[in-house]
């Protein structure tokens, strides 16, 4: 090798070393000391072993204001590239907190956008790992425009490829909106997200609050509903991302992986899990686990709006989305947060052709001024809209209660359910007996010599007539009344038949879901 080759190779090697050195030994040690992995270690953990390929490692900021030309770092605070997850290609970006606090400038945004564009062209999922102090102030509005470039791509890619955001450190201000546009947000216990941080909150409102209480993982998973999954640390969190992707197709033109599981039919247990007395509660997750492939249920947003349970599962190896009323919490009634949670999940499944299984045991929409003033009309409408709009196979099982508008909102025949099953204990009616008798029997009760006896008589009559699934079956709103022991086999058979379902919406730019 001649001298010129040697010098050229030395130069490349030292540039490569500079990239891998990231923010330096001290900052990496600090990152590790706080229990976190570095940006590259996260990529290694996310992808199948040894498959991560870095792209554009040399991209650097062109900014020279405020002495930035002296501080510039190769890679500009983000690692981007691709790799394989369960053997399928995926693209990702991972902000490097050790390099300039992971702050986002023009060059960092360009790197992220390049990777997103590749994901779109390859029709592959995009995963964005966030650990950044925010906009790079020295780069001014070029930095802000960098965020805009990312938001724009997130929006265009929505419904085409699955997009997953992983928050593993600070994510503040404008940085929150890319994750918010993507399909799923994962957070670690030490991550925070907020539009304005505790210091600004204090100076503007006087409120003193810690960053964890303002926007920690617990707040966003249980109160705000911003985050979908929370894990204690980086490794378990990235494992969760891998697990989720196992249920999803690569894009809206792809099919989900069919992975033969262990088809165990536990339907016989269902009549022990669900009390026939509809006033008694039970955990609907036990019902889900008895119907779907053993151990395949993967719950989404488990701590938010617990009155409805949503998540992915497999039935005979095929990915499905499950939506179920949770009798254990707020009697399974529908309210604002449950409507939002379920609607978004239904729409995600519809985007990516994942069939929907709905398990119904719903007393009503929750009454009260808090709900009305909070806009339950427009929030509840999302649920009706999402179910009606979804063209994927839709199967319902009415387990017990199905009352009033809430019954109609839970994937009823009229809103496009393909197959509706009901158990013999189902109660499908416009409203509960007590309320109905007070209205339709008002005059008869008032005129009776013994109003209480008349009321009891009318109630017994109403309950006998309506507290069952047979009127709905006679009118065609229920396709078949089935035994609990037949549940899994009937549902699996329905989805098998529905595999070739071909229903399209009329041509339009897009609908106008009530937001």
């Amino acid at each position: 090798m001649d001298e010129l080759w040697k010098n050229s190779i030395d130069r490349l090697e030292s540039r490569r070393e500079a990239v891998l050195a990231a923010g330096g030994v001290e900052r990496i040690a600090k990152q590790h000391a706080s229990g976190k992995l570095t940006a590259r270690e996260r990529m290694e953990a996310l992808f199948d072993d040894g498959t991560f390929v870095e792209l554009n490692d040399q991209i650097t900021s062109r900014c020279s204001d405020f002495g930035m030309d002296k501080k510039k770092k190769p890679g500009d605070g983000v690692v981007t590239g691709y790799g394989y997850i369960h053997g399928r290609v995926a693209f990702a970006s991972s902000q490097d907190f050790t390099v300039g606090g992971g702050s986002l400038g023009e060059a960092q945004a360009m790197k992220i956008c390049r990777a997103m564009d590749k994901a779109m062209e390859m029709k592959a999922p995009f995963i964005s790992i966030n650990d950044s102090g925010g906009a790079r102030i020295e780069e001014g509005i070029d930095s802000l425009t960098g965020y805009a470039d990312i938001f724009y791509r997130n929006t265009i890619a929505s419904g085409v490829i699955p997009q997953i955001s992983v928050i593993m450190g600070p994510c503040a201000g404008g940085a929150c909106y890319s994750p918010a546009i993507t399909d799923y947000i994962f957070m670690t216990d030490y991550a925070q997200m907020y539009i304005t941080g505790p210091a600004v909150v204090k100076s503007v409102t006087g409120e003193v609050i810690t960053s964890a209480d303002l926007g920690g993982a617990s707040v966003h998973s249980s109160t705000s509903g911003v985050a979908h999954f929370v894990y204690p640390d980086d490794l378990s969190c990235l494992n969760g991302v891998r697990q989720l992707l196992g249920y999803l197709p690569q894009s809206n033109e792809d099919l989900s992986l069919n992975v033969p599981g262990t088809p165990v039919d536990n339907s016989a247990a269902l009549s022990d899990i669900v009390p026939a007395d509809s006033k008694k509660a039970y955990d609907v997750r036990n019902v889900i686990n008895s119907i779907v492939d053993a151990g395949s249920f993967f719950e989404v947003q488990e701590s938010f709006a617990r009155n409805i349970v949503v998540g992915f599962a497999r039935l005979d190896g095929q990915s499905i989305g499950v939506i179920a009323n949770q009798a254990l919490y707020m009697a399974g009634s529908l309210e604002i947060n449950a409507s939002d949670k379920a609607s978004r999940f239904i729409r995600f499944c519809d985007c990516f052709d994942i069939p929907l299984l709905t398990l119904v045991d719903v007393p009503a929409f929750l009454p009260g001024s808090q709900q009305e003033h909070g806009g339950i009309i427009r929030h509840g409408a999302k649920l009706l809209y999402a179910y009606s709009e979804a063209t994927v196979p839709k199967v319902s099982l009415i387990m017990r209660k199905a009352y009033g508008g809430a019954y109609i909102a839970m994937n009823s025949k009229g809103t496009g359910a393909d197959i509706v099953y009901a158990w013999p204990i189902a109660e499908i009616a416009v409203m509960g007996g007590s309320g109905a008798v007070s209205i339709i029997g008002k005059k008869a009760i008032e005129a009776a010599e013994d109003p209480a006896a008349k009321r009891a008589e009318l109630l017994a009559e109403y309950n006998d007539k309506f507290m069952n699934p047979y009127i709905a079956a006679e009118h065609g709103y229920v396709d078949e009344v089935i035994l609990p022991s037949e549940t899994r086999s009937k549902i699996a058979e329905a989805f098998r038949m529905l595999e070739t379902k071909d229903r399209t919406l009329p041509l339009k730019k897009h609908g106008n879901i009530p937001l």
Partner: protein
Amino acid sequence: MSKYRITVEGKTYEMDVELIGANGAVVAPAPVAKAAAPVVAAPKAAPAPAAAKPAEVGSGSVTAPMPGTILKVLKATGDSVKAGEVVLILEAMKMENEITAPVDGTIGSLNLTEGSTVAGGDLLFDVK
């Protein structure tokens, strides 16, 4: 738990498989270092015990999760309770909702009688 090796489209995966019990409960296997395959998603946690979790306003304070009628009062002020123990039953939304103690301790401020109505968010009792 049994270990299986399966091959999907030429790629080999190792997975842990376990049967679920008659009651549908699944024991969660500990997550492995890397999710091996999308075969059987490791469930995150076994289903919670069958008890309604009421909203908490402070440590040990229990408020009504929704408007309803008190059907049964099973404990009284001064009684000691364990976390998860049923203190009263709130009939609301066509359901007898069990309201449980959020923590171990002694019941305080329980002034409800059977048949009294409560609004969503009303303080039911606290546990100290």
